[in-house]
């Protein structure tokens, strides 16, 4: 397990005044973050731009030293002994850096494998296997400068797996990728956690991706964790409501109004068209649906169509961040 306790990271930035003195300002990018990641689970770190997600990941991956706080990884003190932690982790960042453009995909992977201590033959074997895993076997001997953006990102994922890490940090891994390739990467991430017992920390701006993959979410805002929990727990905590959309037949509209108001729902909207009645309203997450069926039965009406729209994670995040702001 990775356990980060009271992580703080401050930066000193210089602000220039034209021809005049430079002013130094201290900014706190991460302010007392506590989080943990178990092996076999996917944890998401969400937040607006500038919330501190990348800074947090860099601290966990030993690229950045925390100003204060501790990080323990399977008994290793990551802050004071980063060299012991490095064989166990890896990081994949979005974008086109961290690769040698004039080397081929395979040469890149072999190089990094050797830095991790793999011998020539073993390094080559690992490279070939990983290239197959990310669907780049046919492009193995092509220089990276000829790769498309999606190919470079897949190669990044392969590089992130080169040392078979226990914990993997993925910073926007599907940024700017086509839908089919992004889906492949998500499937790979899921497989790594479920079947290979890797602990994964993921940041992403794609809420659907986070919703699909993550077991738990930490919501970061201005360097602090403002909420955490499973996606469904966050929905409840956000107070966002579920939208209901019913189509009924054989009902008296006048009776409808009173009936649903008694249930305590909000924003009731009733429209009639071609012999049917459409009812729309919002209700809290924990609203028991059997009340709706009892109400419809009491009205002696038939349900033609019944739909619900759960609040999206995006709605949840915006609501929670908005509250904090």
């Amino acid at each position, binding site marked *: 397990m990775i356990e980060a306790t009271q992580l703080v990271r401050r*930066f000193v930035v210089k602000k220039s005044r034209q021809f005049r003195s430079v002013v130094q300002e201290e900014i706190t990018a991460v302010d007392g973050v506590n989080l943990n990641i178990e092996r076999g689970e996917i944890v998401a770190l969400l937040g607006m731009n500038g919330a501190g997600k990348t*800074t947090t990941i*860099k601290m966990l*991956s*030993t*690229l*950045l*030293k925390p100003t204060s706080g501790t990080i323990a990884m399977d008994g290793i003190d990551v802050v004071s002994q*980063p*060299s012991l932690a*490095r*064989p166990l*982790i*890896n*990081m994949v*960042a979005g*974008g086109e*850096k*961290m*690769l*040698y*453009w*004039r*080397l*081929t995909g395979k*040469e890149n992977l*072999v*190089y*990094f494998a*050797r*830095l*991790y*201590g*793999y*011998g*020539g033959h073993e390094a080559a074997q690992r490279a070939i296997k990983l290239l197959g895993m990310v669907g780049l076997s046919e492009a193995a001997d092509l220089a990276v400068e000829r790769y498309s953006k999606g190919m470079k990102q897949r190669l990044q994922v392969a*590089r992130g797996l080169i*040392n078979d890490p226990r914990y993997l940090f993925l910073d926007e891994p599907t940024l700017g990728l086509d839908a089919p390739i992004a889906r492949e990467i998500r499937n790979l991430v899921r497989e790594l956690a479920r079947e290979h017992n890797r602990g994964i920390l993921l940041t992403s701006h794609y809420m659907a991706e986070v919703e699909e993959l993550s077991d738990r979410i930490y919501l970061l805002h201005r360097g602090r964790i403002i909420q955490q929990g499973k996606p469904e727990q966050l929905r409840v905590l956000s107070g966002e409501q579920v939208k209901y959309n019913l189509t009924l037949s054989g009902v008296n509209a006048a009776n409808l109004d009173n009936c649903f108001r008694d249930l305590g729902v909000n924003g009731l909207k009733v429209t009639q068209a071609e012999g049917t009645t459409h009812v729309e309203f919002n209700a809290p997450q924990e609203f028991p649906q059997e009340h709706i069926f009892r109400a419809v039965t009491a009205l002696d009406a038939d349900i033609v169509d019944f739909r619900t729209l759960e609040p999206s994670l995006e709605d949840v995040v915006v609501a929670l961040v908005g509250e904090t702001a």
Partner: protein
Amino acid sequence: MTVFLRIISAEMTKQQRQLFADKRVFFSLLLWPLLLLMSSYYMFKPFSLGATTGTGKVFFADQHALTVFVLTGQLGYTFMYAMTESAWRLTWERWMGTLEAIILTPVSRLAFLVGESLAFLLQGVWMYTVMFSVLVLFSGYQGLETVYIGLAGLGFMVLASISWGTLMNSLFLLSRDVGLMFQLFQDPVNFFAGIQVPVTVLPLLARAIGIAIPLTSALQMVRLGFVTGNPFAATTWIISLLLSSVAAITVGWRIMAWAEDRARTDGTLSFY
């Protein structure tokens, strides 16, 4: 040892593909030293040989001595430049983002520094071999003795270069202003190392600075070898070569650790 050799091998492959795969670069590596040689040789043309004074006069007694002086200086410059260049190239890795990827690995920092230098040096091994062969032939082949002097000279240069390269790689990681670092460790170091002016002619303070540079001692030993026939004539130069090499590697290694720690503290691993 195996891990160390793996790292060197990995660095060589990477550099060969990333930096030297272009055939035009090889052509340049041949042409450029020739141009430098011309510059060094013709620089002495405004002066009258034989009319020399002071401690360096053995190198300017006649055309032959001057040519050996210039050729050895050129050799020294080439080795030196290779190491400064290797360090400069390392800073590209910061810009490309690959430095972060390397720092992320558990690779031994000392092995990485030495591996970078040695790999870069080995890229030009054919060039150094040609230059040493020219030197051996020009100085008058006198049997195997001359070859031994040549091989010994090559050994001194390689040792001096690796140790200097280790220090350069680490120093360049410290500063974002690599342009100044490059200039600081280019012409001034060439001056103090006695590339164009014999180190024995320099003022005392300049000579002291020169002796701290491993190349100075290696170059002096090579020159003495080809002019007097015995590179080991002066034990002081052997001692200073060994001491300065050990110092350069040790300081370089510690600076790398400090530079990495500072980059992790300031968050500047990926800035350029």
